[in-house]
């Protein structure tokens, strides 16, 4: 058998809604060569080997819409492009980033396919696709493939490229709430919402997280001093810098004590329940490895809890659970713990966090075992599972304690905070039982509260999103999306002018450049994804007009997920797109209908009724459809108006705004080319701009502006 190959001719990253999907995707142009003649069922042993490596493929439904559907297709015979799609999806699932959408479509060229997979993260999905190719080739040729190696390599890439778990949980909740998210390529910063509605997070901090509050939280001594003033129980303590004074302070406060660095967080170099001079001295030295100033404070006996406060509400509380491991004479405690945790907590970092945790260390000290000890058979070790990996206890926290935690966070001044509490019984008020608030932490770890075994609801992420976008706030500003094969740039420029006159702070990206109000901030083609994104992340704008050229829509996708108004002007087949396989008007229409697909349900699709292919897009609109026509009241307009719809058309030299049976006629000055103004006027009406202003702007639109906005007049 000759050597088969799969050649990846081109990879296009579609960063926004595109002809395949509402979501970002990568589109690979794949040449399967002679495999075109070898569907999967004709390759001996291929299907078995493939499914043996990736048993998850059995769950893929494919066109049968039932688990096993894809394997059935494999057995019946399917082509390599399709297999590449599914294997890429499966590999992404295996590394923990399922995306659930793929397509494989043949092209005009035999053996060349478009393989499309939704993006988890751009570089990651690309890497998965390439690995999928290797795996398939190995399966075809019955060659070995280091699947584990490949997966761990991809996992590592995912760790580097994807958002951390705290951020990811918020992003996920924002997505569920349909808040637009700017795809800023940055490890930590995420921008939600558009223009002036933009809000930001950086891991578990928001743009409302006060820098001063953060520094107060970090200065544990100052934080405690403030808390104590308001009657919040905190462990008494003091700052020391020398071993001798540390011991003196410890004796003053009363043994046992806790020693920790004065600044710092997450349990680093913290030692608990120190009783003797030697223990205190050792703990002091450990703490000084982090910082010269060290806190010695009274040790509070009890279990540790972590309360998460978001916008003055306690949204989650996790608390100590204990678990026991039993030795077997072979394994170290470390191994046993990792095994034990695996059942409930998938990730190893949990085990690491546990091993390093001061509470765990204390428990081990008291039981005189070490993590590296091999436990004898029948030796039983009980470990507290510290708050960071504990169970949900929110319902059982005493209401006074919830109030105290909220007050503590307000005093520090944070909007999101993790409050560490020690209590013997979390169901009882703190003070009476000698419990205390130990710390208030800025930028708390959200995964703490996400890792509830069996809990899939994202209450924490949702709480943060609700905090950023209270009920009724969508994070959206009006976005006008314009595409089509004629006049789009001039429409965009003119709409920008109109919105500017209407008092909006408008951003425009179109073929002649990028504009803020009347100021050009960047010359050159702006009818693309990058320019559109740049406008949308600008915090000063409250409306955007974004042109997307057919080429950009084909190669990049739209720069927004949804828009208020989608305008499609006309369909033609520019020769430039022929090399991407767009040669028929229907293909172009299929591409451009994306603009109509993304219109919000309370938005408007503005369509040119004089172009039948454009007119046909009306059926894809979720919201209202407004037609315009230079032919006067055509049949399609009449039908739409009869149903109470809105349309704009020309009647001699007059522009007619028609709503059902009501019409507003406006005679235009002879110097104005009325037909050029139609789509602009229609869109302006859709935006709710008064007729007088629309007409005034059209007449007054300076000739200079037209020159600037239309590099290719006519």
């Amino acid at each position, binding site marked *: 058998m000759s050597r088969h190959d799969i050649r990846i001719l081109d990879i296009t990253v579609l960063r926004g809604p595109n002809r395949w999907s509402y979501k970002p995707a990568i589109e690979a142009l794949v040449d399967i060569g002679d495999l075109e003649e070898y569907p999967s069922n004709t390759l001996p042993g291929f299907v078995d080997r493939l499914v043996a490596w990736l048993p998850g493929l059995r769950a893929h439904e494919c066109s049968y819409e039932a688990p096993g559907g894809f394997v059935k297709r494999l057995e019946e015979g399917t082509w390599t492009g399709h297999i590449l799609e599914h294997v890429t999806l499966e590999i992404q699932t295996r590394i923990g980033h399922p995306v659930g959408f793929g397509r494989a479509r043949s092209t005009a060229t035999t053996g060349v396919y478009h393989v499309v997979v939704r993006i988890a993260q751009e570089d990651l999905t690309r890497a998965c696709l390439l690995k999928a190719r290797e795996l398939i080739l190995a399966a075809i040729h019955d060659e070995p493939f280091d699947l584990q190696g490949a997966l761990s390599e991809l996992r590592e890439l995912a760790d580097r490229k994807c958002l951390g778990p705290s951020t990811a949980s918020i992003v996920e909740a924002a997505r569920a709430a349909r808040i637009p998210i700017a795809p800023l390529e940055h490890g930590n910063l995420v921008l939600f919402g558009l223009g002036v509605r933009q809000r930001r997070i*950086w891991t578990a901090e928001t743009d409302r997280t*006060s*820098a001063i509050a953060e520094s107060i939280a970090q200065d544990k001594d100052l934080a405690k001093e403030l808390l104590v003033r308001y009657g919040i129980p905190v462990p008494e303590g003091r700052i020391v810098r020398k071993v001798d004074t540390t011991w003196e302070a410890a004796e003053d406060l009363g043994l046992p004590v806790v020693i920790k660095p004065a600044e710092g967080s997450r349990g680093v170099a913290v030692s608990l329940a120190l009783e003797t001079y030697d223990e205190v001295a050792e703990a002091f030295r450990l703490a000084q490895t982090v910082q010269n100033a060290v806190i010695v404070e009274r040790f509070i006996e009890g279990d540790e809890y972590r309360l998460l406060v978001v916008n003055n509400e306690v949204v989650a509380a996790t608390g100590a659970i204990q678990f026991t491991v039993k030795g077997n004479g072979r394994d170290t405690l470390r191994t046993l713990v990792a095994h034990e945790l695996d059942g409930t907590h998938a990730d190893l970092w949990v085990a690491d966090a546990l091993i390093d945790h001061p509470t765990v260390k204390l428990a081990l000290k008291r039981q005189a075992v070490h993590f590296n000890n091999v436990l004898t058979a029948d030796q039983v070790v009980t470990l507290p599972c510290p708050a960071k990996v504990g169970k949900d206890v929110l319902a059982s926290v005493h209401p006074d304690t919830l109030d105290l935690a909220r007050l503590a966070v307000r005093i520090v001044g944070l909007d999101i905070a993790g409050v560490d509490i020690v209590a013997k019984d979390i169901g009882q008020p703190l003070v009476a039982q000698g419990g205390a608030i130990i710390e208030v932490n800025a930028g708390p770890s959200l995964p703490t509260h996400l890792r509830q075994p069996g809990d899939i609801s994202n209450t924490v992420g949702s709480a943060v999103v609700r905090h950023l976008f209270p009920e009724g706030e969508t994070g959206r500003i009006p976005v006008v999306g314009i595409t089509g094969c004629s006049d789009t740039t001039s429409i965009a420029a003119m709409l920008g002018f109109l919105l500017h006159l209407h008092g909006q702070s408008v951003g425009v990206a179109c073929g002649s450049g*990028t504009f803020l109000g009347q100021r050009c901030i*960047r010359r050159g083609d702006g009818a693309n994804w990058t320019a559109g994104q*740049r406008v949308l992340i600008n915090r*000063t704008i409250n409306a955007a007009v974004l042109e997307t050229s057919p080429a950009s829509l084909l190669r990049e996708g739209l720069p927004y997920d949804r828009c208020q108004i989608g305008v499609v002007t006309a369909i033609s087949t520019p020769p430039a797109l022929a090399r991407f396989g767009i040669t028929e008007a229907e293909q172009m229409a299929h591409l451009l209908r994306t603009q109509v697909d993304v219109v919000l349900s309370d938005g408007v699709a503005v369509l040119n009724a004089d172009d039948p292919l454009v007119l046909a897009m009306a059926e894809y609109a979720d919201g209202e459809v407004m037609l315009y026509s230079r032919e006067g009241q055509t049949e399609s307009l009449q039908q739409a108006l009869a149903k109470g719809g809105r349309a704009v058309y020309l009647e001699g030299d007059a522009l007619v705004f028609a709503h059902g049976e009501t019409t507003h006629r406006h005679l235009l000055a002879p110097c104005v080319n009325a037909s050029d103004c139609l789509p602009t006027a229609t869109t302006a009406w859709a935006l709710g701009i008064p007729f007088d202003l629309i007409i005034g702007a059209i007449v007054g639109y300076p000739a200079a502006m037209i020159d600037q906005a239309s590099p290719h007049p006519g």
Partner: protein
Amino acid sequence: MQVDRVRALRGPNLWTRRTAIEAIVTCDDTERDLSQFSGFEERLRALYPRLQSLASPPEGSTNGFAQVLEVATLSLQCDIGCPVTFSRTAAAPDPGVYQVVVEYDQEDVGRSAIDIAERLINAAREGLPFDVEAEISRLREIYEDVRLGPSTGSIVSAALERGIPFYRLSEGSLIQFGWGSRQRRIQAAEMDRTSAIAQSIAQDKQLTKQLLAAAGVPVPEGQPVDDINDAWDIACALGLPVVVKPQDGNHGRGVTVNVETREQLEAGFRSAAEAGSRVIIERYIPGSDYRMLVIGDKLIAAARREPPLVTGDGVHTIQELVDEVNRDPRRGTGHATSLTRIPIDDIAMACLHNQNLTLDAVPALGQPVVLRNNANLSTGGTATDVTDQVHPDLAARAVTAAQMVGLEICGVDVVCQSVLRPLEDQSGGVVEVNAAPGLRMHLTPSYGTGRRVGEAIINEMFAADQDGRIPVIAVTGTNGKTTTVRLIAHLLEQQGLRVGLTTTDGVYAGGRQLDAGDCSGPRSGKTILMHPDVDAAVLETARGGILREGLAFDRCQVAVITNIGAGDHLGLNYITTVEDLAVLKRVIVQNVSPTGYAVLNADDPMCARLGSVCPGSVVFFSRDRANPLMVTHRAQGRPVVYLDDDAIVCVNQGEEVFRLALADIPLTMGGRVGFQIDNTMAAVAACWAVNVDTVALRAGLASFQSDVASTPGRFNLLDYRGATVIADYGHNPDAMKALVDAVTALPAKRRTVVISGAGDRRDEDIRDQTRILGTAFDTVLLYQDACQRGREDGEVLGLLREGLVGAERTREIEEIRGEFIAIDRALSTLAPGDLCLILIDQVQEALEHLNQRVAEANA
């Protein structure tokens, strides 16, 4: 001379509105007269020639060494630049004892100054040497250490100018402006709303540039690089010269500009890599460095910054030129002056080396030699104010840059040829934005006009009509304070305000008790004024706190003095007469805001007289509608509250504001309890003064009970097997009179009183208590409790008994040891229809005990 006790009066006090040190000084007979010590003043002035003049006290008598201590303490502070002027020495009633009071700006400095002054005086007295200059320089160090830095200081002074109060929350630069729920915080030049994220963005130069570019702010193109080869390739692609800098970092660390050669690039790369995680190469923009300070949506100041440099004269070496520049007296070593000396350190040497120069080189006439490639003031750079020259477009870009990053206070670094033109016209750009920018270059630029930066920051935090204050009502008086405080708080709550209050039995905010015990001092007051959930504060302001520390606030909206009467606690802390006491209580009236009110009891002449010192208006209240003071006040159109038949009436500008029927005020028991009418009038007057509406007043008065829960130990009425038991904390003759009045108005078959005396009162005050009670009670149970406050066993009981000699009504007297036993004994004798007044001592415990007995009786 002996300095016995040094106190810091941290707020307005008996002596002054300013903060002051108060010391109790005892001088022996010789020390009381300076003339007794020949040569003393000469020796003193020889040791400390700048000592201010020892003016004689106004009375003509001399205060001797105590006064020297006063003047020396003040002089020492003035010498190091503390803005202090007030000092006073007052002779105490005990001969040779003085109270020395000296204003301070910083407590630590004040305390140290008095310590130095004492040692100086001792040295002069003994004729010993004393190095006063060394002490002053140490004092100056303390001052520099504890005082606010110039940036924070400028913000604080701007706040004070607008009447916004402030507290320092830490030893550092964390400051609270305003009070309670209206408070705001700053730390150095950061506001509480400065977002932590915005700070992180500003730290990431690449991200910042990405965001700025999106907003149409010109930035130099550039990108991060991985290694030196990469850096050189990128540099060539961008076009030389370039700038090399770390991606994270600030204060110009690791930045090399105008890099033209690969060698320079390599050096720059290494220094950038040391200062930050990743290195950025970007296009070098020729021109000057400018710093634009944006606050809110305005450009507040702009400065051109120049690195430290010297200009050759063809004669002197670089070292000599630098020395010459550093001789400029404006150049200091710290952050306090408008210029700083140019340091010759490794960085300067490296910088010279890059120019192929050494310190010994003699640059040609007019040749500029740069000693460091950054323009920070703290390393010898200069700043020239150019605020008025900035082109509006350029200013707009700076503001956009700040907003895009999300900083309310932002230092925008711009490089361009001239600020007179837009950036776009000269290919200038924004190279960096800084959170927490230094303000010194704008406050006191090396050249040009200083800008009112602090004012701009305060204006950003507080709208023009806001001063961050919440209504503060201070309440003092001999009797009725706590009930009045509780009632005012209750009425304010009806208005929908979250009230914080301090009383002699605790601090409360948001319905929570923050602290227990006697919390009528300034510390508790500050706790309330710092609490984020407090919309209005009602502060019981007892004499002890005013004496110990002064007031918790600079001024209050309302000061209520319920009464002064014959006084209480006289004889303590040199407050020996009721006049002294009035002077002390006067402090809260003196510190009423000019727009505020003093609520004063017109029936108490001593109290009414305090109206004359009130900077605001006075509201008189009176139980007597014919009280001449009150009548005059009303006739003048001023606000009054008085008892008119069966109602409490408020009249202002001749118009009746409200009329509240006593029948609807359960606290007054239908008007039978006179002192509760006083308390109610004081409370409604105070609430009227802070605009509580009549609806809230009526609702609040109708729902307020004088029970154990709401006003523990204040005329709490209980029913015990059909007898009326009244528990009260009253312990002075005025309280007794009020209680007797109230009790007489209540029907009773037989009246019993249980009383102990607190040992810390004057003998006559203890005797007076029982003398008054003897007129109204059939049976008196005297008890003595554990705490005798410095009296011999049985001494107080004896005094109480003396007061009963010849009593009008009392027929039975019994002496008992122990409060609970006395209570139980009294209860055991009660029959239905009897009345028993129990004057409790250990409020909480006694009330618990009583409650338990009542519960048992009802069971």
